[in-house]
């Protein structure tokens, strides 16, 4: 069951990732990216990351992607106009080479990793309680620095998006 769910959602993630790169219209790319993020949230849940799966859906798919879609619609971004033509032969060759390259990556990672017992759903649960306790004890300073970073980002975004720049 774990393997089946992994294969389904990994397939969706890879399909949406390829779709993100090959689509010419930005709104299609944005929707593909939402598909990647949703399937990754399922995989996080499978790996025992309850909190991070929820944060993935809320922060990434909910907030960041809405911002992206909003900007795409605000700027009325159309499809990319190709600046050079690529022949059909080169496209097929590129697809074959890409598949070969990805297979090579998989082979290298498979060979470099030591044997481990594998992932079973339910073996490890990183609950929100554990994450919160660690975040506010061990990682308290990075957490506070992050709040300053976000403040700077807000001010920077407002300054950049003003009328006269």
């Amino acid at each position: 069951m774990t393997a089946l769910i992994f294969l389904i959602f990994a397939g969706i993630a890879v399909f949406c990732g390829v779709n993100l790169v090959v689509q010419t219209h930005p709104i299609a790319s944005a929707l593909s990216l939402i598909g990647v993020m949703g399937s990754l949230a399922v995989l996080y849940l499978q790996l025992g990351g309850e909190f991070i799966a929820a944060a993935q859906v809320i922060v990434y798919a909910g907030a960041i992607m809405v911002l992206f879609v909003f900007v795409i619609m605000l700027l009325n971004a159309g499809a990319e106009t190709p600046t050079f033509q690529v022949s059909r032969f080169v496209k097929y060759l590129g697809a074959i080479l890409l598949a070969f390259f990805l297979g090579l990556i998989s082979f290298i990672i498979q060979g470099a990793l030591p044997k481990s017992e594998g992932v079973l759903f339910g073996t490890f649960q990183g609950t929100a309680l554990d994450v919160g306790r660690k975040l506010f004890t061990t990682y308290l300073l990075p957490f506070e620095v992050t709040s300053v970073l976000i403040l700077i980002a807000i001010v920077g975004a407002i300054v950049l998006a003003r009328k006269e720049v």
Partner: protein
Amino acid sequence: MVPNAPVPLSWYLILSAILFALGVAGFIFRRNIITVFMSIELMLNAVNLSFVTFSYQFKQVDGHIYSFFVMVVAAAEAAVGLAIILTVFKNRATLMIDEVNSMKY
């Protein structure tokens, strides 16, 4: 398929590597500035998957916290980056990165 067979840890890392490679490809080959930006987000997501996978292996939640920080930085980056894209579009009326090739317009 054997019911409840464990998934090898390397599958997650391979998926992460494939998504990262796709993000790099999008970053290099796309010319729309918004799509390039989304490719960066895809790369960040791929790295997050690696963090959570290693977190599972060590049975510690540190990896979750790292990916949480990555998410926060991605949110800040998206806000500032999209503001920059808005400004570029207002000044030059284009989103193609090939035409945005000078610092001063």
